[in-house]
């Protein structure tokens, strides 16, 4: 109803890629981690990494609806690590360069990121400052033609493989929000070091690193936009990040329910298929109703974005609904799989492991609530 033939053709090509180039490797990548240069190279060739970006930099110049289609189809990936890695590349680390970067930054970093030749990461979170971005300690001090960077970042997705980081650091001492800079930091500069890959319980196909900066000199031309405004840019970038959770969630929840229904339809208990049990049927359809309403809140957000409106509140609402829904569906469906759900490396158990963090990363539920409350003027 909302997508035309061109959208559907694009959807089919993304889905084909997921089915052929991603899902067959997921079991292996969960063990070894996904090889991002290889994967992104293929995706870049197909134009998947620059859907909304300017064709001057290799982008497709398409609109938010195409982006939505793309993310919806990534929801079919068998695990959340790889889509997260992709979303870091397209929706977390590059939007600020696109919106506020100089021509040369775009040519040097955005274009190759769109082409899948460079892997990007977004470096905001620090040890001791989770959802509270204002508590950041990493500092970039101007010194001639460079900013000298000292500090560390943690929970950095793609951090082990990244060629550059989009990094937020304190540039001044004011109490407000106008004392941060957002920088493009190539990872081959002296002073950069990466800890061993953090060993996470979920999202195992994605690498997550702790990064250290020891007098790393960032060339001044790698500052994105104006010094002092980095925090504001990052807040705007957050909207692109948080949006990604929505289409992924309703797609994946539906997949999870479908696979659960297929299982309990076959599973005979006390002489009847488990699907005939009313408590299970009722539980499933409650989730379906929530999934459907999340989908249409999402499409509303897309329309607002197309109309150039501020979507901070609506996206926060969407993420606030999506995270807990995902948790309820993955844990509730696992319950229906019974003992099978408790086996390692069944798909349902992977979903359960991967999704808990969706209520925490990219702004925890409580942070979303605070944002909405402020936007409402409470």
């Amino acid at each position, binding site marked *: 109803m909302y997508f035309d033939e061109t959208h559907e053709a694009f959807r089919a090509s993304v889905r084909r890629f997921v089915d052929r180039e991603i899902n067959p490797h997921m079991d292996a990548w969960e063990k070894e981690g996904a090889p991002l240069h290889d994967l992104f190279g293929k995706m870049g060739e197909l134009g998947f990494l620059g859907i909304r970006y300017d064709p001057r930099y290799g982008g497709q110049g398409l609109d938010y609806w195409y982006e939505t289609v793309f993310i919806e189809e990534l929801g079919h990936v068998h695990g959340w690590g790889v889509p997260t890695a992709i979303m870091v590349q397209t929706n977390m680390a590059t939007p600020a360069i696109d919106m506020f970067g100089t021509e040369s930054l775009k040519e040097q970093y955005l274009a190759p990121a769109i082409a899948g030749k460079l892997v990007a990461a977004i470096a905001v979170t620090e040890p001791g400052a989770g959802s*509270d971005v204002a508590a950041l300690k990493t500092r970039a001090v101007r010194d001639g033609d460079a900013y000298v960077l000292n500090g560390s970042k943690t929970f950095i997705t793609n951090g082990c493989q990244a060629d550059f980081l989009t990094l937020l650091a304190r540039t001044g001492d004011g109490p407000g929000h106008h004392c941060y800079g957002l920088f493009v930091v190539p990872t081959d500069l002296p002073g950069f070091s990466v800890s061993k890959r953090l060993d996470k*319980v979920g999202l195992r196909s994605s690498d997550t690193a702790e990064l250290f900066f020891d007098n790393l000199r960032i060339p001044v031309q790698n500052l994105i936009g104006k010094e002092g405004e980095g925090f504001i840019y990052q807040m705007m970038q957050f909207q692109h990040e948080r949006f990604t959770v929505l289409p992924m969630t309703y797609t994946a929840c539906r997949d999870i329910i479908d696979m659960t229904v297929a299982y309990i339809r076959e599973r005979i208990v006390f002489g009847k298929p488990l699907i005939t049990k009313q408590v299970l049927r009722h539980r499933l359809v409650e989730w379906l109703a929530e999934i459907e309403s999340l989908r249409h809140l999402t499409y509303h957000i897309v329309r607002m974005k197309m109309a150039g409106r501020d979507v901070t509140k609506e996206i926060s609402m969407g993420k606030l609904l999506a995270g807990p829904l995902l948790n309820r569906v993955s*844990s509730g469906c696992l*319950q229906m799989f019974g003992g099978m759900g*408790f086996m*390692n490396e069944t798909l349902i158990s992977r979903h359960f492991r991967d999704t*808990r963090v969706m209520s925490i990363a990219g702004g925890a*539920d409580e942070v979303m609530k605070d944002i909405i409350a402020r936007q409402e003027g409470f």
Partner: protein
Amino acid sequence: MNFAFSEEEIRFRSEVDTFVRRELPPDWDERSFYWPAAYGAIAVFEEEHQAFCRAFLRQLGARGWLSLGWPEACGGGGSMMKQAIADDVISYYRAPSGNIATVIGGPTIIFVGSEEMKREFLPPIARGEINFWLGYSEPNAGSDLASLKTTAVSDGDDFIVNGQKIWSSGAHVSDYAWLLARTDPAAGGHRGATLLLVDNNLPGVTIRPIENIVGFHSFNEVFFDDVRVPKRFMVGGLNKGFYNVMVALQFERLVVGIGAFRRILDELVGYVKERYGRKKDRVKNTLARNALASIAIDIEVLYGLYWQNVWMMEQGRVPELEASAMKLFSTELSRKLAGVAVDVLGLPAQLDRGSLYAPLQGRVMAGYLDAVSGPIGAGTSEIQRGIIATRGLGLPRA
């Protein structure tokens, strides 16, 4: 009514506490990932801990602390209350506080076993020398025991056992299967089955590991291929298997690792005080205050159910609905506690055990994964609610 412990009980609690603190190795907290009312990370199943756990159990056995609840006539301590106190303290430290043989096997044998079987099995169980694994679940028949397929065919003095079991917790580190098998193929449903003790080392027994969601090897598939089991290893009467399993179930539902609930709460409270105190992080503090207050009440409530069940058993009564209620409440609380814990710790909760930065040794996400097993295993929550509705309230069947 009297909710107080006797002086003797208080002294005993302190004795157990002193013993456990002294015996546990200094790095025990990093090694034991037990999550209360869950099945997937029970310390005793971790291979690297096997030597210690076996030795620890034998020490408990030497003190008579594995059979405190058994009748004195069977060599036990004659006090379920003392057993429950010991289990509370020991599980607070996440140490092994008994096993299938001591908690389920022994009491069931006392209830329904032959004199010969009592003589042969009770003493080594009480000493902590042998352990059992529960051989109930089969592929495609978890909570639905009636569709049992494994057979035990009479052949002279033996049964010939064939079939497959699954979700066999700890089979690889136990000595005997506590096996339910169909002995009367003509009988259907809840009839014609018999409970057998089957030595893991008999020819034809094959144990294959299943890695669980936590990443531990606690479960197994076990195959029985013409395994010859002498009839004296029959537990209770021929074709009385389902009845005997029901008897055993009542004992099983008391195994909730009650102390471990309180331990996690204490650890979370400590974490919040240190990290979110003095307005460091008001958002987290508010969330934690509300969630932990609610958990604290639930744990108090669980203790109430626990002591009531224990007291009933002490009186020689068999808790039925009370046991179902506790199974349901404890396993659901186990999940709720894990969910709250992940929220309270935030992103660092995602770090795996062994990671330098993992708070509480990374046990929270492991527990979050493990906790899913509680409401599934040993009769799902849905089945428990059905039992309470039908047998407890007398409501019509659905």
